[in-house]
């Protein structure tokens, strides 16, 4: 079991946690619900020894392990029997599964007995009814598989595994930080029973999430955090998802409701029999055909790594492929085409923004070379400033003004800068990849709102998104990419389960 007693933590004057208390009993799954910024991650980082609490105590396992302010380091946490699976995996891509487990789950420096470790990994996997190849390279594994490696690693790290004995222990605590964020419905369906199996064997599981129905399915009890304080703690039974959502957000948030329209627009993007070149890495895009019309949001669902990246790159003309037809953009002007597409890339910090530069400069990035921002290659900064002031206001970008660096903005406002730059010109075609990644509920809703509104104003939107719920809430049509091939979900006559099966190629 694990007990947090009045944990308080402030970061440079800002209170992140205000007297949070929480008890998870042995052998239960305890949900921790909250929006981004509610303090879930900070609480878990304190539990895992990555941060120190200002006040409060953490008790793990049994009374003799009691520590005044939690473990001093991740190593300390492991010694106390606490393992953690981070939301962002910390697996070295070039390492093998065994090496990843050795790195995370042991602390010696000496010779590594590969055979023994492989046996332990296989044994742990077997108990969770998983298949894992200990010699596989991390980079060759899918996201779901990588998460399994993370869980096995965390279990092995708490030191409860001796030889091939049971990896579960009465005193072991496993923290799962948003474990379903990157999984398909089917993978979620496989993960949740495994979590139950862990609990049944005596492990205490802290299940961090903001997905209500998952908490409902897997957790025995739930603690809901809002702005660093506990607003509810108690058994899940008898708590409706609607009530949970209200507790979590404070007010009711309405996701944009799919206001389906008959497709009336002209085709804005026509892809006909797109195939990557023969030497492209797997999964190679094969015979992908689809059309995105104006006034339409076409969503592409799929498990990460099934060709989404390649598809987007081909559409943008960054990679060469056969038979891309984009009306209005000649195939040979590939890079010129990028400028005309409204692009919201996956990783805004690396692919869309220059963090060291000001908001103003980021806002003008795609137009910097044409009037009124530049004449004959000579820049006109007055026009830049006016442009920035206008967009900051129109897209309500909250920060220290147009001259502040983008790095000083919050994630949501950074995404607003991207959206402002990409959408203010009312492009005919918008390509958005995971546009709400890392944003809280309110910010996500605002981003999706913007896409819908652009659609309503006549834009064709191609949306590649990992969050199936959000995707379904805005899409006019859903296509599924699996293994480089595209399948039409037959929208709207389909359901989540059907799309999930298509995503796994089992339909």
């Amino acid at each position: 079991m694990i007990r947090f007693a009045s944990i308080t933590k402030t970061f440079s004057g800002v209170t992140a946690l205000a007297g949070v208390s929480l008890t998870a009993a042995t052998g239960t799954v305890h949900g921790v619900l909250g929006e981004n910024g509610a303090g879930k991650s900070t609480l878990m980082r304190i539990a895992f020894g990555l941060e120190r609490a200002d006040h409060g105590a953490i008790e793990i396992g049994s009374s003799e392990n009691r520590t005044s302010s939690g473990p001093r380091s991740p190593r300390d946490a492991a010694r106390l029997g606490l393992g953690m699976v981070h939301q962002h995996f910390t697996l070295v891509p070039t390492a093998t599964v065994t090496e990843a487990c050795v790195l995370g789950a042991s602390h010696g420096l000496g010779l590594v007995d590969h055979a023994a470790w492989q046996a332990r990994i296989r044994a742990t996997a077997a108990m969770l009814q998983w298949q894992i190849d200990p010699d596989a390279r991390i980079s060759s594994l899918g996201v779901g598989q990588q998460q399994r490696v993370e869980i096995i690693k965390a279990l092995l790290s708490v030191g409860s595994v001796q030889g091939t004995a049971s990896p579960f222990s009465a005193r072991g605590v496993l923290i799962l930080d948003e474990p379903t964020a990157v999984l398909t419905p089917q993978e979620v369906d496989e993960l949740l029973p495994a979590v139950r199996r862990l609990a049944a064997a005596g492990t205490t599981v802290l299940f961090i999430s903001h997905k209500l129905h998952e908490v409902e399915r897997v957790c025995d009890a739930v603690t809901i955090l809002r702005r660093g304080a506990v607003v509810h703690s108690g058994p899940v039974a008898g708590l409706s998802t609607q009530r949970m959502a209200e507790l979590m957000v404070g007010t009711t948030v309405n996701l944009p409701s799919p206001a389906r329209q008959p497709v009336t627009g002209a085709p804005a993007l026509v892809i006909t029999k797109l195939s990557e070149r023969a030497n492209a890495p797997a999964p190679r895009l094969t015979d992908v055909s689809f059309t995105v019309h104006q006034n339409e949001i076409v969503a592409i669902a799929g498990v990460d790594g099934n060709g989404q990246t390649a598809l987007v790159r081909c559409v943008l003309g960054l990679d060469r492929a056969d038979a891309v037809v984009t009306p209005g953009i000649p195939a040979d002007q590939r890079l010129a085409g990028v400028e005309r597409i409204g692009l919201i890339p996956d990783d805004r910090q690396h692919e869309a923004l220059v963090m060291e530069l000001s908001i103003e400069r980021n806002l003008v990035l795609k137009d910097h070379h044409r009037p009124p921002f530049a004449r004959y290659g000579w820049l006109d900064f007055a026009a830049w400033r006016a442009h920035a002031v206008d967009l900051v206001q129109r897209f309500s970008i909250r920060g220290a003004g147009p001259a502040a660096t983008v790095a000083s903005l919050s994630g949501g406002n950074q995404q607003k800068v991207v959206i402002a730059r990409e959408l203010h010109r009312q492009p005919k075609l918008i390509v958005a990849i995971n546009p709400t990644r890392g944003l809280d509920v309110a910010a996500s809703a605002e981003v999706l709102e913007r896409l819908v509104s652009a659609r309503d104003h006549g834009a064709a939107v191609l949306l590649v998104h990992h969050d199936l719920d959000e995707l379904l809430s805005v899409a006019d049509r859903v296509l599924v990419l699996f293994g480089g091939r595209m399948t039409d979900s037959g929208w709207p006559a389909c359901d989540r389960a059907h799309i999930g099966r298509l995503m796994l190629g089992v339909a």
Partner: protein
Amino acid sequence: MINDLLIVVVIAQTLTAATPLLLAGCGELVAERGGVLNIGIEGLMLTGCIAAFAVTAITGNSWLGLLVAMGAAMVLGAGFALMAITARADQIVAGMALNLVAVGVSGTVWRALQSHGVTELPASAGFSRGWFGWSGWSSFNDLPVIGPLFFDLYGLSIATAGLLLLTWWVLRRTRIGIVIQAIGELPDAAAAAGESVHRWRWGVVLFAAACAGAAGAFLSIMRTHAFVPEMTGGKGFVVLALVMFGRWRISWLIAGCLLFGLADSVQQQLQSLPGSRALPYQFFQMLPYVVALVALAGLSRSAPGPAALGKPWPVSR
């Protein structure tokens, strides 16, 4: 006699020429696998040269000279680590600063030594050929082939072979290797596993510095028993090229160093041939570098290298 055959001589010379490159390269390879690019290897080698020479000349104790060479290089390496790891400054620039300081300091020390009349090693000091002068081995020097290629090499050449083997083993079979891989590929993973990225990176930098210092000592108190300002002649930069050429793998590094040493050894034999003067001698001198460049271009696209190479950690955004 078989040992006088050209091929045996060339191979023996290749091994000797490759020794300082392999020694410094082994350290730099580990550092780069750990994500730290130190272009100050040249300066560290030069520091090793002067420190080993000064201590050996003054005390007459070659072992002390070797140790101090490694220690002095580690002191400068610590300065580099302070800049590049702790202060998270740019690694390339820190390496350049290191080179400038090392050249200046070695020149100043050399001037100081000369003003006190210390310009020669004592006759008995300095390592000679053979396994650190263990007389028992010298009787094997005349064995066919393995005599010149094994027993008559320098002690540090043999030690370097051992070091390479040990490094290979450590990187491949122990958790140290796994952690070094992690701090070079994805430092966050190492941090999440409870390892101190900074402490490990300090470790690999100091190891690389010690190796470079020993390589410098090889040049001054073992191979030549002399010090001349800037006697490293750009070998430190060659080491950097060879580590990249070797795709950060010990086996490829060995191949690269031997290839470079072989090219150097062959150009010396070629220069001695009658008729070689038809070409300017600079053609021969640039041969090893041209061979290295051509070999690189001829190889298939080289590996990208450790993902976090040259990047300070934690990355501040």
